[in-house]
């Protein structure tokens, strides 16, 4: 809706409803944000702005859940801004813009959804698991890696048919299963043989291998870039389609600064799950070749296409990304 040329979809204030620690330096933040909650899909993120003039840039945080009027974010203290955020009590308002970007294309998922998450990449996949379960029709396996303590395992267990967790450092057996048990879960107990390691160790384990329905599998992944690259390669070798969510430093988070671009191979269609509105599609087509759009002529011949992580992503098809060492 437009009021005097101004559209009602800008930054809004969102009150903190609940703010609790999930693990050491990892917090769950529930915000009252009905407009965002109504439309957010898994893989999208919001810009969180801090109430501090020394920290003006947005903090992009993935949506971990959206129900009723609430948006859940799960984040780690990673620097000054998230440290300040972690001290905001319930009742405090933060400014919020979103949901931003294109999420996972849940419609493209076959009979087997394989969710592969690393660390703070897990929360967005929790939201994906929930929505895939709601849609029905797919078996869901989650393969999750953590640096230390795990989180989101209970939720994952609710929505997934099987959950595998592994940690690089912490005593994983007791932690991983203890935190996960005690709910009347639909899925199985999280599986963990007590070894420490990373997501790729789990992914290449025999248990996961036995569950894999490669012909019908779709990978949804989120996590650190080296992990995503390894997942992309793993999936490619098995002919499995993978949707990965990238991370990049952002100046605006809504497509205006061109700070967040990544190199991709030319592609036909966007990977994102969010259906573009007619208005947007019109803008996009018209602007084909516009800023952040497809390079034509010279660039195209070199296969050079740059896309904005904030608006064209953060979710991309893994085979369209030009990985660092390609």
């Amino acid at each position, binding site marked *: 809706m*437009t009021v*005097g*040329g*101004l*559209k009602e*979809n*800008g*930054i809004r204030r969102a009150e903190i409803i609940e703010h609790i620690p999930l693990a050491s330096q990892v917090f769950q933040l529930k915000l009252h944000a009905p407009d965002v909650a109504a439309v957010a899909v898994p893989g999208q993120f919001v810009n969180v*702005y801090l109430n501090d*003039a*020394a*920290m*003006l*840039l*947005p903090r992009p945080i993935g949506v971990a859940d959206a129900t009723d009027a609430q948006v859940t974010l799960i984040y780690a203290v990673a620097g000054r801004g998230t440290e300040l955020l972690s001290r905001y009590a319930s009742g405090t308002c933060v400014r919020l*813009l979103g949901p931003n970007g294109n999420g996972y294309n849940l419609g493209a998922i076959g009979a087997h959804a394989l969710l592969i998450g690393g660390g703070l990449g897990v929360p967005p996949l929790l939201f994906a698991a929930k929505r895939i379960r709601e849609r029905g029709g797919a078996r869901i396996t989650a393969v999750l890696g953590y640096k230390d303590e795990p989180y989101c395992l209970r939720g994952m267990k609710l929505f997934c048919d099987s959950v595998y967790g592994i940690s690089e450092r912490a005593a994983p057996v007791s932690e991983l299963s203890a935190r996960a048990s005690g709910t009347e879960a639909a899925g199985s107990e999280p599986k963990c043989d007590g070894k420490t390691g990373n997501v790729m160790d789990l992914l290449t384990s025999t248990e996961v291998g036995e569950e894999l329905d490669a012909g019908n599998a779709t990978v949804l992944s989120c996590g650190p870039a080296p992990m995503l690259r390894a997942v992309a390669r793993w999936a490619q070798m098995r002919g499995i389609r993978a949707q990965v969510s990238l991370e*990049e*430093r*952002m*100046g*605006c988070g*809504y*497509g*205006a*600064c*061109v*700070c*967040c*671009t*990544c*190199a991709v191979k030319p592609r036909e269609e966007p990977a994102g799950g969010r259906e573009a509105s007619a208005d*947007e599609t019109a*803008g*996009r087509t*018209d*602007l*084909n*070749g*516009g*800023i*952040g*759009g*497809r*390079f*034509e*002529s*010279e*660039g195209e011949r070199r296969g*050079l296409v*740059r896309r904005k992580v904030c*608006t064209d992503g953060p979710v991309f098809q893994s085979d369209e990304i030009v990985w660092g060492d390609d």
Partner: protein
Amino acid sequence: MIDMRVDICGVKWKNPVAAAAGTFVAAESGKYYDPNLPGAVTTKGVSLAPWPGNPTPRVAETYGGMLNAVGLENPGVDAYISGELKYLKERGVTVIANVAGHSADEYCAVVRKLSETDVDMLELNVSCPNVAAGGMAFGVDRNAVGELTGRVRKLTDKPVIVKLSPNVTDICDIAAAAEDAGADAVSLINTLVGMRIDIRSGKPVLANVTGGLSGPAVKPVAVAMVYRVAKRVRIPVIGMGGIMTGADAMEFLLAGASAVEVGTAALLDPNALPRIIEELDVCVAGRSAAQIHGSKTGWG
């Protein structure tokens, strides 16, 4: 709402607030406000061929501002003309094309192509600190600015704005060189060269090592430069640097600017332009033109 129309080198703006180059993308900014709302919009620096820009990270946070080192990633002038420019002109928007180049010939080639379009004004970006050749290399040398402006002047009937770099010994000299060579206006300031180092890794935060500082932190520097340049040249001065509110914009007008551009504020809030225009409306209410352009009428 009071009449805020201004005439900048013969081009009518409905108010004196424009979007600054590199911070406005029609398809994205247009999701938040009608691009027809500002007096004009300046589009991202455009070069002859597509430029891929710098590696990432391209942005870093600073106290009261940000550093960017985008490096003028853009799809090239042909794609710009058939894409962004066409889209905006179809909607009746007053468009300033920000022109980039690695060499004087390249700037001229872009200007030649743009002259044949319905773009309203050209802004020569001789002040980008984030590209190895061209950009600021021109803007810090008064002879180079004079020569380039002179060459461009002969190529086009479009109003030519020269965008000045603050990274110089005396910005007034450069402004005067642009004026003498036939510029219709000058705009300032582009970003200040800056750098941040991550003490954990011991390495620069930006992949490009250095970047351009913008945002509220630069505003006093920008106001002072606008003030000095406006006293030196007779052509209109378009002021920018750290404008976050209507009151900030008012300071620039009082310093002698005929109009302003808003950059970083729009990145931090997609609705900053409409908000600033409304706030400025309140600021100018009840003031005469002489009171608005204080410095030009002689208080300093």
